[in-house]
């Protein structure tokens, strides 16, 4: 167990707090448990749930952000996902889309496949984002800080990254229920 493990909130608790602060922003959620949990906590047509293509959530969100510069675009990502496509942090940092918000739930494990360790316990992904050129970068450990920082990020020009250290607990959430082509259609209509 990590030293701070006992005090950390779960990813689902963190997600619930963030989803309360979001309204109709396009939200791209990475594959695995995160998509399933968001679907369970608050399903909205502005959500794009991924079931595969691990590592691609921020790139998809970047495409949406560039196509829709008037909308704030949010992506929910994980540490394993970020590590898989760390180059995308550089692409985003270099392009500096003002309307881009990257939330990373960092539990230091590949949770969906059985909690094998990632390397985010030694590689500080928030520092990588900062070096890559993200304008606002915050790292939080508890719910109060998370709400405070996310409210602040929503008011600022990005790109922003909020890294939330969470515990390994995964919510009992079923698989993504919508068919993928219907997710595409629903999302496109909702963000038109």
């Amino acid at each position, binding site marked *: 167990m990590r030293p701070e493990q006992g005090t950390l909130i779960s990813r689902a608790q963190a997600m619930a707090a963030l989803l309360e602060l979001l309204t109709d922003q396009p939200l791209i959620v990475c594959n695995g448990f995160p998509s399933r949990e968001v679907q369970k906590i608050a399903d909205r047509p502005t959500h794009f749930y991924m*079931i595969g*293509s691990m590592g691609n959530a921020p790139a998809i969100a970047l*495409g949406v952000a560039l*196509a*829709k510069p008037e909308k704030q675009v949010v992506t929910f990502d994980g540490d394993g996902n970020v590590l898989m*496509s760390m180059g995308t942090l550089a692409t985003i940092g270099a392009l500096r889309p003002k309307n881009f918000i990257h939330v990373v739930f960092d539990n230091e494990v590949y949770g969906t496949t059985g909690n094998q360790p990632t390397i985010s316990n030694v590689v500080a992904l928030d520092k990588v984002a900062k070096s890559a050129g993200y304008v606002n970068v915050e790292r939080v450990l508890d719910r109060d800080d998370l709400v405070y920082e996310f409210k602040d990020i929503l008011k600022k020009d990005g790109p922003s990254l909020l890294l939330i250290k969470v515990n390994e607990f995964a919510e009992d959430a079923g698989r993504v229920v919508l068919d993928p082509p219907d997710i595409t259609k629903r999302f496109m209509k909702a963000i038109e």
Partner: protein
Amino acid sequence: MIESDAFVQAMQDMGVNFFTGVPDSILGGIIAELMDRRLYTPAVREDEAVAMAAGAYMGGKIPAVLMQNSGLGTSLNTLISLNMIYRQPCILIVSWRGQGGKDAPEHLVMGEVMPQFLETMKIPHRTLTEKTAVEDFKWVAETFMKQRIPVALIITKGVVKGLHP
């Protein structure tokens, strides 16, 4: 030989309004023209470019991704588990390195298997020639609209004017 500006104009006339990708020498002239027109968003990996194009498509754009054929390997999972499964179309503009076995060693295997590779992935593809260019572009536009999956336009060396003629 097709001029790079004519190629880009044909893509724009087709409605394509979002371009990303990773460079190749064969595509150098096209990318230079796209940058001149401020239409190009550079990516660092081909799978990232494909995912960015998918996002742009969902945001209302008609996207194209430029890449060397080695990038088909890099972006394979995204093409299959994002574009194919979610029905998100994009136009892949792929340079055919290693065609006919005449290229640097790193291009020879992909150069040889690329057509079968695209067929296995069920990606409709067509190789651009100067003589058939009008029909080629028309085919790309129609396939894109009808099938809602990635469609590949293959560019061989010398068909579109590069940076170094």
